[in-house]
């Protein structure tokens, strides 16, 4: 009888354990983040969210991760840095998410960093410029291909292209918005100016809500610079490009760090005003052969983006938002769990195969090799979107392994 009772008890315990394990296995793997769905960066925030949702659907269609379905738990941060700490505290304490990733952009990534460091969480971030330089957190990783010295590498291509002109340019004007990203981009530009031995003749910033940029462009023109480097967000990119065309800026190279021309809305609205500008891009159809698996993702993304009223091209951010999740997916699979220390060690040690190519992280969590493209827009006519879907409007100038042509200068001769 005693033996029977023992067998029965043992069986019951084993059954309970199996049931618990089974219930646990069926619990979703929660990935938490804040995302800007309203406010100035909402366009990119929504585009990133669509990409991450596509990734979750793709993984779930294949049976999930570690045998668990993926559940994205996200909250709207209103593009407001002050909302970020409470969002991540709630994700970790109330929602009990297994993994956290960042929202889009430097100004919402930085406020989450102290929480990640306190909780020892791996923090995969989406397009933050040089965030870890102040924190030096060894579990921070960043998917933007800015390179190991993000602030400097960000504009390295622009200045390498500009100084390759013959005769070599001598003077430079630096201008940007009074905001986080432009300030960091200008800081890096100053380092590149020093490296190239150029003389700064104008170095000023403007308030983000500036309406008329023509006084700024005239003040720049009065210094007669060979190079004009601009770091701006979409509304001021549009304002500056229009003012530059209205005033008739004469310089050899103009551009560098304009956020906006990467997206369909500004491309179609500015049209031929973009001609001649040298700027950065993270992907362009001219180099599609280097991204063999991206087409299938873009086809899925573009279908949804039109319905959601966000960037219908999806060249700039969405592939990288998807790649960010692919990195985590591969690290979780390889380590076989969610141990944050093991994940961080693995992500530092190994290379990842993603839709945007091979990704390897440097010690500071940035890409070990910069791969942001420096391009020049040309031959843009009219305002239709179709012309941007296929090669022909962009020459890739940098890095050399991706280059499809050489820069055309001076700027004023290539404006139209």
């Amino acid at each position, binding site marked *: 009888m005693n033996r029977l009772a023992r067998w029965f008890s043992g069986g019951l315990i084993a059954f309970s354990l199996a049931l618990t394990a089974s219930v646990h296995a069926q619990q979703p793997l929660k990935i938490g983040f804040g995302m800007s769905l309203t406010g*100035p960066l909402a366009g990119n925030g929504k585009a990133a969210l669509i990409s991450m949702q596509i990734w979750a659907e793709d993984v779930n269609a294949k049976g999930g991760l570690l045998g668990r379905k993926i559940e994205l738990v996200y909250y709207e941060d209103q593009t407001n840095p002050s909302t970020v700490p409470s969002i991540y505290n709630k994700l970790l304490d109330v929602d009990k998410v297994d993994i956290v990733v960042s929202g889009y952009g430097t100004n919402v990534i930085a406020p989450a960093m102290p929480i990640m460091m306190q909780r020892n969480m791996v923090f995969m971030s989406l397009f933050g410029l040089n965030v870890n330089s102040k924190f030096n957190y060894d579990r921070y990783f960043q998917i933007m291909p800015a390179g190991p010295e993000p602030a400097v590498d960000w504009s390295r291509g622009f200045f390498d292209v500009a100084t390759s002109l013959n005769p070599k340019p001598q003077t430079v004007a630096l201008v940007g918005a009074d905001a986080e990203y432009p300030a960091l981009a200008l800081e890096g530009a100053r380092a590149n100016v020093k490296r190239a031995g150029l003389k700064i003749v104008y170095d000023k910033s403007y*308030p983000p809500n500036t309406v008329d940029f023509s006084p700024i462009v005239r003040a720049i023109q*009065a210094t007669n610079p060979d190079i004009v480097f601009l770091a701006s967000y979409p509304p001021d990119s549009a304002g500056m490009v229009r003012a530059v065309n209205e005033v008739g800026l004469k310089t050899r190279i103009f551009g560098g760090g304009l956020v906006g021309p990467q997206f369909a809305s500004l491309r179609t609205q500015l049209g031929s005003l973009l001609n001649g500008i040298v700027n950065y891009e993270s992907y362009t159809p001219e180099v599609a052969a280097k991204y063999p698996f991206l087409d299938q993702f873009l086809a899925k993304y573009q279908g949804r983006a039109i319905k959601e*009223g966000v960037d219908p091209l999806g060249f700039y951010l969405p592939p990288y938002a998807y790649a960010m999740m692919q990195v985590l997916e591969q690290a979780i699979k390889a380590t076989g769990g969610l141990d944050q220390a093991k994940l961080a060690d693995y992500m530092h040690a190994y290379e990842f195969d993603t839709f945007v190519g091979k990704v390897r992280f440097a010690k500071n969590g940035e890409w070990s090799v910069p791969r942001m493209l420096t391009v020049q827009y040309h031959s843009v006519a009219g305002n239709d979107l179709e012309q941007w879907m296929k090669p022909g409007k962009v020459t890739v100038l940098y890095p050399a392994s991706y280059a499809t042509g050489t820069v055309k200068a001076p700027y004023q001769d290539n404006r139209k």
Partner: protein
Amino acid sequence: MDSSTALVLNAIIAGLLLGGFYAALSVGISISFGMLDVVNIAHPAFIILGSYIAYIVNDRMGVDPILVSIVVSPLFFALGMLLYRIYYLCFEKRGQESLRGLAFFFGILFITEVALILIFGVDYRLVQTAYSGTTWRLGPVDFPMRLVVPFLVSVTMVVGVQLFLTHTFFGRAVLAVAQDQLALRLMGVNPTRVKGLAFALSIATAGVAGAFLIVIQPVQPAVGREFIGLVFAVCVLGGMGSIWGTLLGAFVLGLAESFTSTFFGPSWAPAVSFGLLLAALAFKPSGLLGR
């Protein structure tokens, strides 16, 4: 002409053109806040609504956005009437207009923004007009049509509002409401009706200003918040309830911004503009043309 003279002349023209645009943004606030004592913090939301209506008609039918805004201004007028009626019945009539009324307009601001996000998405929108890429040059001075056309229509609108207020019975009734509602009631005029019509006029001007905005710069649903401080600053600087004062205040801030950007660096522009506002209020607390 040397380059510094050309810079000065261009700074003056750019400042005046910018000031004209600021006047269009602010004239509605001058009526609602300056004359009617209604703190319509949602005014920029109606400016953005005007931008989107101008955008959608321009995008689908190719009609000039400013023309669209003038054609649809009666709709904005009707919307203003409705909004004031709700405000009056829920807050003003009960004597709760100060704090709860402010919360009401904050709510309207957020609801409008979210509605625009749901309908149009969060992408930036901009219109192309026949004159957007044209710049007239008079010697060394530039006249970008992207700013000249809104300037001309704006000044016409502001002068029209002023003439309307000073040369019509209704306009004088609005001015009387601003001064003494009880006296107006004793004269047999219903101040609530007058305030409703005046508030509607202020919303109609916001709709037109929205078209100017989307001609000048890209717009997304939340961009209106950036103008809340500016429109109230123009109204206070010019003098509460003074339409000429609003125009003058807008020109002062436009010129200050343009000169600061040209000669000292654009990041100083807000400090100089609001420094001027503080200085003007210190020496003339009622504003430049306030009574």
